């Protein structure tokens, strides 16, 4: 039933199409073609009338006269103008299709390998760069130290160790500079401690080299001087503090290998001193103020000022070079200021044993300066840790002129020491805590002999 109806529908559609062809070609009208198929007249009339309605209005949809001609010329000109529209055969999309599949795979594989290599290289170099620039407190700093230990393990002789130790000491100096700039002073102690450790280790290594090759040891010593002088001076400029003596043993050892006529090894040393609180010391304004200091903690300062040892380095005895500009607040009142050690900055070859007050046994604050035997000019602090505790804190009267930065300008006391006015309770500074003696020079197991 359905197929019969569909067949009839299809037949009527075919007849309708023939009628439309006749009407479209002008060979007939609606009435004339219906007359050809009278049995389908009722079915053909509505669609034929609708088609006739459309035929009659097709002209309405024609473009404006002349549009096709002008538009054609416009298009052809655009096709022929260079750069506007490329020729059909030169489309960009088809450019890559001319390459064979094998060659395309090779190109893609090579590009992938190149990209991977570039990414690995960039990742490694950037990580190494970040590690190398890390400072104490950074997450990658421990990796930097581990890297240093690894390089040391690969070193096969003392000379290699010495060069590496010098490099690491140089790194510590740079790190200290960066720590100060970054305001992270809390890491200065351990960094300085490691610097001392590296210096001692370098000395040990140089001594080992000297046993077999004096020239080589001298060469390494010169390298040490050239490497560390500049950063030490730079750091000392930042700190702007007094000059301290070098570790005499280290200094003598290093200078022992410096050739005649060359610059001696700079005196690099650290003295642990106590820095009184500025509020407790009224004369603090006269004191050269370091850029950083630890309140109630020792201030570690050093200078790159080259301090000449004895004329012949080989004969130098391990002596502590007296500080040329000791912190005024740390200097005890001296009965004979003319005998201050700054007047004779060069150490004597034969230091005399002078009783030095120990840090653990400070004199009472009321002790008159006369009771404290001032060290004679020739007295040189012993190269022991006790020397660092020499500047004992005393309750100095506030109106007592304190020595300025240059000890030579320290005004002499005009009154007998016994007449030294006692500090008023309101002016009495708080007792400076006992200086915490940090054994900076205490080397790690690999300290110099």
């Amino acid at each position, binding site marked *: 039933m359905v197929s019969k109806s569909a067949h009839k529908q299809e037949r009527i559609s075919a007849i309708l199409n023939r009628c439309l062809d006749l009407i479209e070609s002008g060979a007939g009208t609606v009435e004339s073609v219906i007359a050809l198929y009278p049995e389908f007249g009722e079915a053909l009339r509505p669609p034929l009338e609708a088609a006739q309605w459309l035929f009659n209005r097709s002209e309405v*949809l024609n473009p404006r006269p002349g549009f096709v001609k002008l538009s*054609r010329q416009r*298009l052809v000109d655009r096709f*022929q103008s260079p750069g506007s529209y490329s020729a059909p055969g*030169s489309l960009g999309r088809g450019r890559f299709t001319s390459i064979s599949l094998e060659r395309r795979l090779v190109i893609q594989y090579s590009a992938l390998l190149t990209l991977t290599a570039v990414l690995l290289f960039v990742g490694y170099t950037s990580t190494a760069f970040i590690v190398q620039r890390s400072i104490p407190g950074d997450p990658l700093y421990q990796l930097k130290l581990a890297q240093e230990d690894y390089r040391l393990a690969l070193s096969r002789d003392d000379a290699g160790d010495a060069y590496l130790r010098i490099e690491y000491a140089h790194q510590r100096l740079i790190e200290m500079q960066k720590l100060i700039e970054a305001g992270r002073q809390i890491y200065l102690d351990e960094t300085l401690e490691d610097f001392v450790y590296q210096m001692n280790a370098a000395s040990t290594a140089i001594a080992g080299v000297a046993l077999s090759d004096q020239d080589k040891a001298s060469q390494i010593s010169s390298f040490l001087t050239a490497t560390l002088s500049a950063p030490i001076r730079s750091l000392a400029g930042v700190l702007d503090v007094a000059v301290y003596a070098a570790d005499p043993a280290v200094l003598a050892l290093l200078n022992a290998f410096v050739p005649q006529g060359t610059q001696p090894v700079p005196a690099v040393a650290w003295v642990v001193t106590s820095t009184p609180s500025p509020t407790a010391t009224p004369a603090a304004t006269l004191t050269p103020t370091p850029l950083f200091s630890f309140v109630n903690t020792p201030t570690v300062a050093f200078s790159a000022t080259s301090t000449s040892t004895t004329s012949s380095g080989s004969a130098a005895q391990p002596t502590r070079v007296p500080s040329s500009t000791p912190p005024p607040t740390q200097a005890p009142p001296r009965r004979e200021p003319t005998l201050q050690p700054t007047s004779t900055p060069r150490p004597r070859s034969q230091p005399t044993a002078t009783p030095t007050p120990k840090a653990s046994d400070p004199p009472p604050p009321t002790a008159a300066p006369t009771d404290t035997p001032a060290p004679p000019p020739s007295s040189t602090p012993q190269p022991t840790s006790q020397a660092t505790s020499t500047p004992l804190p005393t309750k100095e009267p506030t109106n007592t002129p304190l020595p300025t930065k240059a000890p030579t300008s320290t005004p002499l006391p005009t009154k007998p020491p016994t007449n030294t006015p006692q500090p008023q309770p309101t002016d009495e500074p708080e007792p400076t805590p006992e200086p915490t003696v940090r054994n900076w020079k205490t080397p790690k197991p690999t300290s110099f002999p």
Partner: protein
Amino acid sequence: MFNVKGCNKTFEPSFLGVKDMPAWQDSEESELIEIAKGGEADAFGELYRRYAKIVFRFIYANLNDRFDAEDLTEEVFLRAWRSLSNYRQKGVPFLAYLFKIARNVLIDFYRRAGRSGGHMSIEDKQITDFNPDPGETAILNIEHQEIRNTLTELREDYRTVLVLRFLSGLSPEETGAVMGRTPGAVRILQHRALSALRSRLDI
């Protein structure tokens, strides 16, 4: 004398800057397509001359504005020129190929119009209606709107088959190629579409 690849005709060379225009109108469609594929814009221009009017009717039957229809007609042939290297003559007829592009162009136009609101401003209508013979233009616009309104009431496939068959003048075979139907299916579809159209006409 030279031969153009894919073309049996022989052309005279250019002489003294005067280019000899070959008699493109005598060429077969397949010849013109092959020559145009070689970059000969004039051959494609002949194809444009033959089919631009048909394409325009199809587009204008789906738009309200004549100038938009003219622009879109050019756009159809521009796209055809740019993708001519992908055209295979053994596939669909070239006219069906053009109408497929035309349908895509119309879809893109509707999308753009939809994003911009889909309505013409009063100023645009006034500019569109400006003509040296406003009376004739008004009549044409009224008849055009009558066709548009009537066709809009029909289904999309009815509207398409009527426009292609009776306004653009495509054969059932060409219409089937454009619409993706067999010629028999097109004949049945046009029968139903005409019946539906007749029921909406007051004649």
